[in-house]
């Protein structure tokens, strides 16, 4: 975690401060006190009221009010209900949930038990990605220790409340982060989403009422109960309370996890906490919300981060990935990169998402090859809107966002590819040539030696030449040249 002012640690309060494999260290820091107090001194309704009044909203991306979700699940009558923790963390470039699970697994177990008490569920399930072996190991240890201490199991804290937690493993499918797909995956099926309603709170795992919350959402619960709704709601903006953890990555100096109060500006995050752009380059854009989000520009740097502001600016909060791009990044390629991801991760159940995203990808590919036309641009926008409006689940409904937001904010870059056959940031391989400036080249032969395909020729101490047909545009020569003699055209 990058250490700076402007940060408040709520969800990450214990990460790095306790030994996550020792329940005693969690207990010393008021661990399980919120659960004990809730079970012995409060009714489920009272606990739900605290969560509602705190203003906590889901950190998994949707931003749904957490207290309200708990109340909805509570109100449904059923013999068996389930509490689920969504630890699928599929947004590539984000690792908030992983850090919480690895650094403070008990906070999630405690919050799930509180959730069980409020909703009337006796079983908890954590759906975790198989790619996170350390988090899985720590969760297993934590569950064993909690059972040993009677913090999970029968008659917790001497009350008649019983609750236990089991793990369910993902197997590498982004769409399984979507709650209905996640539930199917937990049932041993293909992780395909279904239409809502019915919402999981009415009919979820095995057809029973199921309350799904994200890891970070859970990590806030025990603190809110200990410190009170007023304390929590005093942090943040009018409609977004508390803090948000972001995984700051890309072209910033300080990469890593940060936790800031809602309402912090993007500028503060990127320049004060993130220490500005790497190698003194110029800021170009920041993508929030992962493949479902959009890119924000210079003009958006001073908006304060909360659910509603980000949506109003054409992006979204998402789960907390924040990727910073500099002047060297081509925005058309960026949109193509995200579409490549969506095409691969689309489950294929609905045609707008399965076919539409593929077509969007192909159009973007044509444009990055310099073969696009103006007509393609309008088709691209049209199709993007169709996919957004007609897809079955959140994946397809948001996958065109990177395309639309780059078109809105960087239309000139699209135009340059289409009209002039140029990639202004020099990233699209098909549109560039590496050239050696004969005046600056001293003939040190370094470039010829690093060239993986031997496309560079020239005598020692004489200017070298790149054979454009053989060149695979890997850029190794330019990275290595000490004299700045190689440039892109």
């Amino acid at each position, binding site marked *: 975690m990058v250490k700076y002012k402007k940060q408040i640690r709520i969800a990450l309060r214990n990460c790095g401060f306790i030994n996550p494999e020792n329940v005693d260290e969690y207990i010393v820091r008021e661990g399980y006190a919120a659960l004990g107090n809730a079970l012995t001194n409060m009714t489920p309704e009272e606990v739900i009221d605290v969560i509602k009044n705190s203003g906590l909203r889901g950190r998994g991306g949707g931003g749904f009010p957490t207290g309200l979700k708990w109340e909805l699940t509570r109100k449904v009558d059923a013999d068996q209900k389930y509490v689920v923790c969504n630890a699928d*963390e*599929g*947004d*590539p*470039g*984000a*690792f908030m949930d*992983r850090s919480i699970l690895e650094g403070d697994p008990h906070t999630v177990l405690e919050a799930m038990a509180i959730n069980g008490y409020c909703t009337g569920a006796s079983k908890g399930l954590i759906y975790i990605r*198989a*790619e*996170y072996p350390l988090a899985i190991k720590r969760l297993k240890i934590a569950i064993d220790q909690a059972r040993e201490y009677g913090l999970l199991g029968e008659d917790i804290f001497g009350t008649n409340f019983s609750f236990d937690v089991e793990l*369910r*493993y*993902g*197997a*590498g*499918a*982004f769409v399984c982060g979507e709650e209905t797909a996640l539930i199917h*995956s937990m*049932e*041993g*099926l*293909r*992780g395909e989403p279904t239409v809502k309603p019915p919402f999981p709170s009415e009919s979820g795992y*095995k057809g029973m009422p199921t309350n799904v919350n994200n890891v970070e959402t859970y990590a806030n619960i025990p603190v809110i109960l200990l410190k009170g709704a007023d304390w929590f709601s005093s942090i943040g903006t009018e409609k977004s309370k508390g803090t948000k953890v972001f*995984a700051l*990555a*890309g*072209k910033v100096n300080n*990469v*890593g996890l940060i936790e800031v109060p809602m309402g912090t500006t993007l500028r503060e995050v990127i320049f004060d906490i993130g220490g500005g752009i790497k190698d003194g380059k110029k800021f170009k854009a920041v*993508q929030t919300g*992962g*493949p479902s989000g959009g890119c924000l520009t210079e003009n958006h740097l001073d908006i304060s981060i909360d659910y509603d502001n980000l949506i109003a600016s054409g992006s979204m909060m998402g789960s907390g*990935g924040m*990727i910073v*791009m500099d002047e060297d*990044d081509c925005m058309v390629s960026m949109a193509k*990169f*995200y579409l490549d*991801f969506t095409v*691969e*991760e*689309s*489950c*294929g159940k609905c045609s707008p998402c399965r076919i539409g995203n593929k077509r969007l990808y192909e159009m973007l590919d044509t444009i990055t090859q310099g073969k696009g036309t103006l007509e393609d641009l309008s088709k691209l926008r049209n199709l993007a809107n169709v996919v957004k409006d007609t897809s079955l689940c959140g994946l397809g409904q948001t996958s065109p966002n990177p395309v639309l937001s780059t078109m809105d904010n960087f239309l000139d870059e699209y135009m340059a590819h289409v009209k002039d056959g140029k990639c202004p940031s020099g990233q699209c391989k098909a549109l560039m040539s590496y050239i050696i400036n004969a005046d600056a080249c001293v003939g040190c032969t370094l470039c010829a030696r*690093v060239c*993986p395909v031997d496309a560079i020729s020239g005598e020692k101490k004489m200017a070298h030449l790149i054979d454009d047909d053989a060149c*695979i545009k*890997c*850029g*190794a020569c330019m990275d290595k040249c000490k004299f700045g003699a190689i440039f892109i055209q």
Partner: protein
Amino acid sequence: MTKHLKDYNMADIKLPENKIQELKDVCASFNHDSGDLIHVLHAAQNIFGYLPAEVQELVANELNVSVAHVYGVVTFYSFFSMIPKGKHPISVCMGTACYVRGAEKVLDEFKRLLSVKVGETTPDGSFSVSCLRCVGACGLAPVVTVGEKVYGRVSPEDVKGIIAEYK
């Protein structure tokens, strides 16, 4: 993410008896409940290294579901593989953080030096190359893993050395 059975070179594979028994025991420990199919497949891939048609048939029998159902699940999830991985499975992270920091060039270099495409294994069975979506080590981008070992801040020039470590 669709893969087709015909894409795989399926020689008739004889599964070792002891491993078959091990998998049957796993199925029994889950009470042959098809709701635990994904757990069973994870275990099966651990035992056999991959999930050839023969293993899928065995699982289907044990859990009392159709082979088509098992195949549908196996092909849905990218974690499950129907071809054996190399002795040293190389994965290049193509998550966003790694992509912005040049993961594509690193991947290209692995493909070039080993003469394989993504998802393939070298003819001698020693290396396979695949892509991953974020291993959660974005601070170290670009990230490459070989087996359990993680390499951070990898540049295309480092690739040769990494491969050499396993030769």
